[in-house]
């Protein structure tokens, strides 16, 4: 084997260095130190593309690290990252701009009654930044001699036609100019070969979706998404003390949902404290919203101005901002092989958000992402000499796990809401696990010509938002956002829906230039992929730009 080929082959290739991928690498290295484990990550640095609330259930972290890094609890990093334990857990219901009341007792009652959404309590969990968590897990991985290469974006997989195994993963071409012409520094995307492939790309993974198609995996229900937008705000000492560093607030109602008289959207607001006088405020909205002129950032503005929220953040300065999608359809949307039921196929397995292991009753997926990475590692370790059975073993391990149990309990929740809308769906979801599985439509089909009634007067300042996400791409490259057919935009979208991509893209990527909708500012892209899901005519494709591009989240 010549030298070049030697380095283009690893024993295990993990696509995506988020919590799932890193957990898999760390656990696997501990089980089998001789394995050549290689992680690739499209972000320039660890944690840069990771955004979440986030509230973390700590058990999987113990499972992972007690073994791999016994002293972990005493490290400065662990103490800093796990500094905030949830002590107060508020669920607020907002009615209009000023009124709010605490409905936590409903959830507590639900818990006593063993109803599904009793799971929504977060006491004793930790408030973490997933960017920081990822960076920390990455440094543990590096200390264990795991190869972790940032700035490499993958775009596709190649399968062996005979046995369906994945042979290689292809990286993105680098050094093309805007028109796609090769510049002097052009390098074609390399193909990386590996015995085992772990897909841990996060929500709506590019390689994962290609793999699902090529390996003919199926989802019982289409994946349903939510879009989250979040700002990290530096507030005054007294505001921070008033809020406290150990309290989480989840808000329902205004401005997303006003029964009968206003908009009806699934989702809500979050207020989480972060270290050193910072408070994170976010809005999560089900991507099946119907309003052509709705933008989650508008809801964020309204939420921030609500009197309950405002008092904690008024006059604060936004230090970071970002957007991301959450896969919410739960167990029925986990892709698997229609014959064998495997989550993945042969030597290739799907983990974390790429698989869709988010429990909507808890509104959490981070713990499951870590668990799935651990099971992936176990499955690989047990099949070193028979890679083709890895996906099978992985699926067995998942099905025996707590992860599966809780996913099963939440399995019908999001679909119930999607089917009946929040007004009827939410109460109904209390007994969702008793109901049959509903047929739901993809988010892309939900858009109508309806208008959002609470739209704020002032346009949201997306430029500053994108700047606060610190996003950056090499300018001279082909747009990684593709409009498949501009005629569809002109004929079918603009007349009915008013080109909603211009509104819903949180980073103002889309613009009308000479009467044509164009991804005019691809370098603003936050890699949230909302456009791909929310285009009413399914006419946009998000592809991977050159590695190291994208947002640079630090504490999101």
């Amino acid at each position, binding site marked *: 084997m010549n030298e070049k080929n030697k*380095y283009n082959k690893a024993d295990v290739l993990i696509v995506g260095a988020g919590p799932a991928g890193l957990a898999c690498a760390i656990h696997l290295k501990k089980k089998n130190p001789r394995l050549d484990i290689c992680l*690739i990550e499209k972000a320039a640095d660890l944690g840069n593309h990771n955004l979440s609330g986030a509230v973390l259930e700590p058990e999987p972290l113990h499972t992972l690290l007690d073994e791999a890094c016994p002293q972990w609890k005493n490290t400065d990093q662990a103490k800093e990252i796990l500094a905030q334990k949830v002590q107060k857990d508020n669920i607020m219901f907002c009615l209009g701009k000023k009124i709010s009341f605490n409905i936590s007792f409903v959830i507590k009652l639900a818990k006593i009654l063993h109803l599904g959404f009793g799971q929504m309590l977060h006491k004793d969990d930790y408030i973490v930044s997933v960017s920081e968590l990822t960076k920390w897990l990455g440094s543990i991985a590096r200390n264990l001699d795991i190869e972790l290469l940032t700035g490499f974006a993958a775009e596709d997989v190649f399968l062996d036609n005979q046995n369906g195994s994945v042979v290689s993963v292809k990286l993105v071409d680098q050094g093309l100019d805007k028109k796609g012409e090769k510049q002097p*520094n052009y*390098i074609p995307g390399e193909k990386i070969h590996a015995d085992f492939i772990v897909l841990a790309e996060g929500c709506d993974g590019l390689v994962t979706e290609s793999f699902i198609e090529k390996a003919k995996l199926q989802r019982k229900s289409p994946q349903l998404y939510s879009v989250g937008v979040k700002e990290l705000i530096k507030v005054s000492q007294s505001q921070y003390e008033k809020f406290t560093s150990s309290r989480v607030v989840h808000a329902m109602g205004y401005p997303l949902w006003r029964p009968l008289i206003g908009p009806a959207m699934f989702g809500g607001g979050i207020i989480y404290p972060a270290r050193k006088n910072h408070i994170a405020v976010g809005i999560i909205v089900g991507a099946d919203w119907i309003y052509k002129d709705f933008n989650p950032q508008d809801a964020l503005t309204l939420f921030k101005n609500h009197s309950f929220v405002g008092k904690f953040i008024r006059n604060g300065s936004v230090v970071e901002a970002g957007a991301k999608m959450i896969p919410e359809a739960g167990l029925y949307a986990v892709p698997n092989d229609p014959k064998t039921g495997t989550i993945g196929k042969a030597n290739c397995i799907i983990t974390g958000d790429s698989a869709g292991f988010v429990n909507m009753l808890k509104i959490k997926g981070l713990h499951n992402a870590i668990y799935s990475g651990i099971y992936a590692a176990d499955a690989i370790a047990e099949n070193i000499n028979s890679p083709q059975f890895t996906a099978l073993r992985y699926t067995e391990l998942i099905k025996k796990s707590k992860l599966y149990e809780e996913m099963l309990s939440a399995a019908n929740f999001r679909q119930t809401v999607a089917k009946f809308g929040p007004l009827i769906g939410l109460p109904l979801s209390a007994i969702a696990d008793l109901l049959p599985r509903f047929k739901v439509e993809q988010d892309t089909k939900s858009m109508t010509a309806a208008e959002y009634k609470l739209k704020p007067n002032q346009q949201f300042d997306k430029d500053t938002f994108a700047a606060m996400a610190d996003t950056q791409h090499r300018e001279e490259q082909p747009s990684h956002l593709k409009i498949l057919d501009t005629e569809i935009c002109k004929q079918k979208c603009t007349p009915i829906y008013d080109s909603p991509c211009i509104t819903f893209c949180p980073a103002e990527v889309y613009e009308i230039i000479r009467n044509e909708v164009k991804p005019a500012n691809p370098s603003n892209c936050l890699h949230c992929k909302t456009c791909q899901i929310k285009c009413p005519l399914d006419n946009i494709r998000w592809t991977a730009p050159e590695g190291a591009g994208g947002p640079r989240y630090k504490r999101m």
Partner: protein
Amino acid sequence: MSNYIVLVKQVPDVSQITDNAFDLETGTLIRTRLKSVINELDTQALAMADQMKHQNGDEHSKIICLTMGPPMAQEVLKYALGRRVDDAVLLTDKTLGGADTVATANPLAFAVKKIVREFFNNNDDYYVICGMQSVDGDTAQVPPQIAEELNLPCIAYVTDVAYKDNRFEFTGIIAGGSQTVAVKKPPAVITVAEHKYPLFATFADARKAEKMDITQWNSPDINAELIGVNGSKTSVIRVFPPGKSIRKKQKLENTQSLAKIIQQKSKSRTPESARKNNAQKLYRLPKNRVAKFNRSFEATKKENEDFKILSDTLKKLNITDINRINRSTKEQILDVAGKHFHKKALDDMLNGLELTNSTFKGDVWVVAEHDGREIHPATFELIGKAAALANSLGVNTGVCLAGANLKKMTEKIIHAGPDKIYLIEHQLLEQFDPAAYRKAVADCIGSHLPQIVLFAATPRGRMLAPMVSYRLGCGLTADCTSLDITDRSRTRNIGILLQTRPALGGNVMASICTKNSKIQMATARPGVFKMPDKPLNGKGKIIKHKIKLEHSDRSIDIIKTSVAPGEVNLNTEIIVSGGKGMQNRDNYEKLVGSLCEAIKQNLDVTIEKGASRAAVEHGLADRVRQVGQTGTAVKPKIYIALGISGAIQHMIGIANAETIIAVNSDPNAPIFKQSDYYIVGTVEQKIPELVKYLNLQNQNE
């Protein structure tokens, strides 16, 4: 077969500097708050080396990457190894730490020699390729100093290279144009100002780099002469946050408000002097001060305070003669002032008080810069500054002028009124060849021994000064924005030059003094010192300095010099500059042109078109219009940057503008953080709107 050594440096990522990255008390950078990255221009040097290797077509030639730094600096070597570099060497040793540019260049030069011996089998057909400067220090001194130590030709500010007739032809930036040159014979040192196609990492190389054991050399391995703090010729006295240069960073939502601001600001009549803190009292040597123990010109506040307490104490104790202080009087002094300083400090201070004459001897000089026809305006600014320094020290002002056919230029210098003019006239100095010039100028300085020598921090001055100072074994501070005479009595230094310069991309200021040197040397940015209002009253005595130059003293062949036609005067009240965001020359002409026209029509101001380096490199504008560190440094009332990202070299060149306005479509454009007002949007959309409002505004009045 040519080989290549690329020098890279690990630097803090100054583009990511946040407000909390500095200790506000001391102005020092909290290194852990900033990521360490490879110096951007060094990535372009890597690309240049790779291009040369391919142009040369020799498969066996090698690119070796060298860095000096702490062990973690091997990260930048891994970066390079992931991008087709063949091998890498990390020079690391505790004893190398704390070095200035001299004590950096010297060990690097010795490491280069060792690489040539051990990697190239003593084959001396090699090129040392470096980024023009680093973002943390931005002195651009190390490469020319390495060239000086190795006695090699140095070609600076290279933007392109071609391989013709079996040799490399380098095209680089010169004032107002570009020049293509070739070295007579390799080896040579090349500094890169721009390479448009930085290399991408490949997965295979990046993995290989991760697994590789990188060669490490320690100090004893290279046996360098000048290392670490002890080998340095300058020392940093204090670091502090930059004063009022903080820009407003105000985002404007529409072009209408921008039109208003342009109108208001164009009317401001703030005299330039009001912006500078001129309240400083004039330095006098201790022997000329009224109060005998007056030591109020120390370099730090603490020392001034200590000396004040000491002089008050001496007064209280009725001590007037330093030499009569014995053990018991010292006890008395300590009794009174003991809580302020201890015995050792008192001894040092008393020793310092004995000195009343300046530590350095000789005149204050300026090395004149010219293009063969005209003296560069910065020379006259420096003559004014030199006269002020000389006045404080009670010495003469001298100007050193080297070249051929100097008659006309000499007259201009005489008119400026320095005391002495040192002329080095030689036909081999007709064109600027760094090797010949540095020899001539260093010889002249070395034989007359002034105490201070100032150079303009132009592209040429920034190459010549480090070579000359290194050759004379003297320290040099680059790009000073303020030069003052100070005392450091406790270290027995009286009447020395305090050289203050911005560092870390202008985020901190550092005050520096020369040490272990016979002469104090500094370069100063054009435009920071005021052009003297009237000529000095020096006699202008001419001293001819004879120099022996041979053809072998020339190191380069000048193949082509292109200075863009037409004179452009960037000394106007408003400058409208276009960057790469203009896309093409037509757009540049149309948009920049229309805005200039609208301002000229509606407001009573002088105006000129400028351009960023990127715009010039892409052919959107002529080189004469280039604003920035490698172009012209400007100080208009309003600087309007259209489609300019705000590279650090550009921002340095406009640092003295009163108001900076930026229009850019990238909400992350670094220029926004350093401008007073900005608008996010494409220039194609915003400029026509702005023009419309400027016109409307005028009609309404």
